[in-house]
């Protein structure tokens, strides 16, 4: 039973239902209380511990129906297994000896066939099936484990003896079993991979270099960015809430009022400290980083949802503020509009930095973190490191994220090596997962 639950939960997880181990334990307790006889009741009960939103309940119902369409779920239940063994063992299935596929099919005991099929399947590790291309391989493996060799020998022998009828018979048996197994494998594949294929692609995409992302993957990529942002928000938004006044702090009140001879002259209240981090982000949207800019912007946008006080700027040859755009438009419109308004020009870091300084002169202080997203390639213009130096002195932190690997810094028109000394952190940041790490770090630091 533990086996079937574990399997079922794996299927659910692949279908994007989040299940923790404590919920797994609950599910096990539930199934031992409820028992497996009443499928409907089991479904209702399990859904209460495993699916915790309406969407998840729908997925759960689908998965449950699919999963238990297989009539052989009971094989993992020890009591059932014993019964089977009693009924079946004398007739056919004995894993130690060479199992006889022929009699297995001829006894027309579907349950027995399915039992041995499921056993063979778990023996060859069918639960790890991931891609449809593996269907053939697993079918073959299961067939072999169920005694293909003996069957083939029998066929060979029959053909040598000239017993045509028997040969045909046996061949038909082989074909029927093969089809049966193939159906089974395909069903398992469907069960396990309807969502996991997407998951594999998403995992791969979040590792891939941002500039290499194919146009056709943009939609999926946007989804990943959103997911990450959502995860970050979930992690950090709790800390954002603030309470100005708490309850009366009796201890400090009494302590303070000792000087007034115990008369309660002054009341003290528990207060929560509110640290307001200020983040200013500057994003390069020029031609040289065109491939990456889009994702940078999306991420900036997501960031502006997590952090309360963020001002965003975009630049190619001069900087402009896009905070309002991010506040009012949705993620894709905002990114597209920013690219139209500020993108396309040739990069001028010097000019942009001095523009930025003008914008934020009054706003920058010891609490401010400045994030710069860009490749640091300034078309041999004056990099104006002096501005970055003064910003460095005024701010709390400057983080420079560069999509180029470190080995390319300083080559050609890259001013990265001249900027780096004035940044508290200068990092190569080429994939979404890199980006996420940096933001994670930033959030932990700033709250």
């Amino acid at each position, binding site marked *: 039973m533990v086996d079937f639950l574990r399997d079922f939960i794996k299927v659910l997880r692949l279908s994007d239902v*989040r299940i*923790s181990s*404590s*919920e797994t334990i*609950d599910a096990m*307790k*539930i199934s031992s*209380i*409820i*028992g497996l*006889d*009443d499928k*409907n*009741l089991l479904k*209702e*009960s399990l*859904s*209460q*511990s495993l*699916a*915790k*939103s*309406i969407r998840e*309940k729908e997925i759960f119902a689908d998965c449950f129906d699919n999963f238990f369409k297989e009539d052989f779920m009971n094989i993992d239940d020890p009591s059932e297994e014993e019964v089977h063994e009693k009924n079946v063992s004398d007739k056919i299935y004995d894993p130690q000896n060479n199992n006889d596929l022929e009699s297995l099919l001829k006894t027309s005991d579907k349950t027995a066939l399915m039992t041995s099929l499921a056993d063979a399947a778990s023996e060859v590790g069918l639960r790890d099936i991931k891609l449809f291309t593996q269907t053939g391989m697993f079918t073959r493996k299961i067939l072999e484990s169920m005694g293909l060799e003996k069957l083939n020998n029998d066929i060979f022998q029959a053909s040598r003896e000239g017993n045509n009828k028997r040969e045909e018979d046996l061949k038909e048996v082989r074909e029927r079993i093969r089809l049966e197994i193939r159906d089974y494998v395909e069903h398992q594949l469907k069960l396990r991979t309807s969502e996991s294929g997407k998951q594999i692609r998403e995992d791969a995409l979040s590792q891939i270099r941002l500039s290499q992302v194919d146009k056709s993957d943009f939609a999926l990529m946007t989804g990943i960015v959103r997911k990450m942002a959502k995860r970050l928000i*979930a992690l950090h*938004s*709790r800390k954002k*809430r603030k*309470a100005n006044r*708490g*309850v*009366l702090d*009796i201890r400090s009140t*009494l302590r303070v009022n000792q000087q007034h001879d*115990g008369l*309660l002259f002054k009341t003290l209240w528990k207060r929560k400290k509110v640290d307001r981090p200020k983040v200013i982000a500057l994003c390069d949207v020029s031609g040289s980083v065109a491939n990456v800019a889009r994702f940078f912007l999306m991420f900036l946008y997501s960031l502006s949802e997590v952090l309360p006080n963020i001002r965003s700027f975009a630049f190619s040859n001069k900087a402009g503020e896009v905070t309002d755009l991010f506040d009012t438009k949705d993620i894709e419109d905002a990114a597209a509009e920013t690219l139209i308004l500020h993108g396309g020009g040739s990069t001028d870091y010097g000019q942009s930095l001095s523009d930025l300084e003008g914008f934020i002169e009054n706003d920058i202080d010891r609490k401010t973190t400045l994030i710069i997203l860009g490749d640091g390639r300034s078309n041999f213009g004056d990099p104006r490191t002096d501005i970055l130096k003064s910003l460095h002195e005024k701010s709390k932190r400057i983080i420079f994220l560069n999509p180029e690997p470190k080995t390319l810094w300083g080559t050609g028109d890259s001013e990265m090596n001249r900027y780096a000394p004035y940044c508290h952190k200068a990092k190569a940041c080429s994939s979404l997962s890199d980006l996420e790490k940096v933001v994670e770090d930033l959030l932990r630091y700033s709250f």
Partner: protein
Amino acid sequence: MSASKNAIDLIQLNFEKEGYICNLQIATAIYLSQNLNKPILVEGPPGVGKTELAKATSEWMNKSLIRLQCYEGLDEAKALYEWKYGKQLLYTQVLKDKLNDIISDKSGLESSIESLHNFDDIFFSDKFLEPRPLLKAVSDDKGTVLLIDEIDKSDDEFEAFLLEILSDYQVSIPEIGTIKGKVKPIVFLTSNNTREIGDALKRRCLHLYIPFPDAKLEEQIIASRVPDIEKKLKTELVNFVQNLRDLDLKKLPSVAETIDWAKSLVLLNVKSLDANLVRETLNVLLKFQSDIDAADSEIEAMIRKGNA
């Protein structure tokens, strides 16, 4: 039929006696929460009987119901416990008067402090503790039904602070220690889904989703709540409401509103639905003028459909 199935059927039957008609799902949830000692998080559209479920449970099990209505800004001082500051202050005054008696026979600072230490200190004790709903529910030795209503209206912090109570059924008061009752309370949390509940909280609860009832169940509910209603009218009325829920409305009519409507129709001595009557009483079911306007043109068709 297994023992658990019997127990669940019994729960269903008992609820019916209390006038709460529930389906297998709800009964299963109650059964599981009793057996696993887990709180139930009840979600669903407004007016399907989430709060009613807790009330029915408390009546059926003959335990007192403690209700905590959540709202923005609810904090532990209002939900869990508070010190009786006024009395504590008076106590310090009394203590001050007593101080002379305590240390009068002592000479020297050290021995005075020593005897002060030995003096029974009740400044932080349950005498000065003002229990709030959660503490009451946890510390009651007879066991209670605790209803935490509309948890989605509370703040995130409050949700986090519920975690200890929900998993261990105990309350820690720093100055006193951990308070725990002999019998674990049965806890219901309800949510209208105005915001997503945190994973940590969900993990600790069984999750029960109560949708709008189907026609059969709704008829049973009406029959139990409005016994005077005639059978024909009951069927017509339930079918009408079910059809109404298929329309694209701002706020769908809830079970509570169906019951109200049934009651008012009985009061008006109606035997069968007709379009005019429905039009006049539609404001019992629908609470937005735009919804009433939207439904208006469909009334005839829906009555015909309901009768068919």
